[in-house]
């Protein structure tokens, strides 16, 4: 019997993580329902990115992380990715010396399987990337790199993507574009866990909102409910 209800893509219970002796995550509980965009908000340093890294196996997790009914806590990163969990880290890790096309090629997990998205589909969706398909990814702008890392993760046909700070340091116009892309991915049936600092973008595209403080979840609700909670916003989000 699976531990996770059919509607839940990701279910986290009692997640702890440490950096050396510092106790960063202190029992995180959260759920990402299937087909939804769930936002994880919080100030810098409260453990949002560490939560993402612990789910992905980059930081050793303690606790239960159920993905599609399977406990993935403690699995190596590549095995987690193979199960269908995609991750776009905050530093927009493109492979700088390789072309845009080769970056996308590396997103494919298994060349023998039929692909949901082809490299050409991706390039057609993004004229900016298409015109630079053969340029090294290192010379792209911040926004283009962000698009590329998201598209590269999509090439692996994930069921859930964790996107960490996709809009950080981007111009407002590009932020809107990234927001549209995330909405489109969600429409295509991919669940999304959006780790963000910017409230405007997160509240626009998410259906569920979690707020983190001091390594714990301090609030959970819908964006509509959250808009009414000025107290939460003041205490946990405003600088």
């Amino acid at each position: 019997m699976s531990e996770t209800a059919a509607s839940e893509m990701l279910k986290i219970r009692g997640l702890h993580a440490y950096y050396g002796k510092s106790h960063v995550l202190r029992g995180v509980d959260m759920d990402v329902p299937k087909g939804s965009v769930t936002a994880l908000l919080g100030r810098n340093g409260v453990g949002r990115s560490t939560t993402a890294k612990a789910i992905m196996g980059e930081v050793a997790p303690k606790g239960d992380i159920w993905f599609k009914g399977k406990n993935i806590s403690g699995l190596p990163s590549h095995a987690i990715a193979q199960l269908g969990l995609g991750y776009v880290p905050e530093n927009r890790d493109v492979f700088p010396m390789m072309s845009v096309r080769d970056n996308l090629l590396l997103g494919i997990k298994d060349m023998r399987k039929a692909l949901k998205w082809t490299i050409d589909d991706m390039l057609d969706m993004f004229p900016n990337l298409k015109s630079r398909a053969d340029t090294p990814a290192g010379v792209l702008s911040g926004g283009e790199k962000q698009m590329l890392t998201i598209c590269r993760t999509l090439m692996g046909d994930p069921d859930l993507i964790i996107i960490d700070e996709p809009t950080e340091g981007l111009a407002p116009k590009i932020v809107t574009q990234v927001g549209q892309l995330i909405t489109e991915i969600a429409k295509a049936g991919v669940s999304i866990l959006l780790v963000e600092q910017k409230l405007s973008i997160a509240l626009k595209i998410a259906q569920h909102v979690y707020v983190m403080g001091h390594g714990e979840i301090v609030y959970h609700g819908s964006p509509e409910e959250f808009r009414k909670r000025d107290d939460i916003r003041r205490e946990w989000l405003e600088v």
Partner: protein
Amino acid sequence: METVVFALLNGLIYGLLLFMLSSGLTLIFSMMGVLNMAHASFYMLGAYFAFTLGQSTGFWFALFLAPICVGAVGACVERWGLRRIHAGGHVGELLFTFGLAYVIEELVKIIWGKFAVAYEVPAELNFSLFELYGAQYPAYRMFMLLVSITMLAGLWYLLKRTRIGLIIQASLTHPHMVSHLGHNVPRIFMLVFAAGCALAGLSGVIGGNYLVTEPSMAFSIGPIVFVVVVVGGMGSLAGAFVASLLIGFLQTFAISIDANFAEIFSFAGLNPEGDLGRITISSLAPMLPFMLLVLMLMLRPRGLMGEREF
């Protein structure tokens, strides 16, 4: 003129042999961030394996089989040795490979004896290919050249033109990101380590009978391979290639110059008599790579094409 042509040919062959060794070491360095002190020991194993296998299967089978065996040994060393130590930092890895070099040397002495074994050039290739300026040029050297160029082309194709090559290159610089894309990075590292060892093994197979197969062969070539990697630039395959050829030419030219310091002194108007004057240029040949190393570290610590400094 004939000295130059011979030195060029021999330098090219020696340089490519060095590249076969240093390419594996460079790939492994990019991956682990630390020099594999036992790398030349895999070169030695290649020569000894080829000697033993060759006795039952003949040279041609051994040419393929011995590098595969060396690669398998390398894979085991990575899987059950280095991978465990890796988490503990670079010093542990360095000491591990340093110790391994001695262990391999002692094992070789126990199994094959302390003296050189009779690993010889196969009879099929033991003839003179052509005559150049009245001197016979051995066919085996041309064979070495052919094997090296084939290896070079194969390595280039694998790394630049295949998806697995792209995955390897990306894993060297962004291991976390590559594993988040679902690629098994520890397994890729094991394969790279094994392939690097197999290349060292191959250079042992074709170099062991041309030079000499004895327990000290690893320690005599090992330092020169490190020089190649440092001069070329840590982690740069193109740099290792240029540096291999540079050192290959430098050494063979120095050996072939039939002059001593007395001639240079008298040319410069200095006193040609005395101890210094009796030193021949060719006797400096073994020292040249290390002089180059010292100069390189002083003037350009990142090497010819390297991206990182010490």
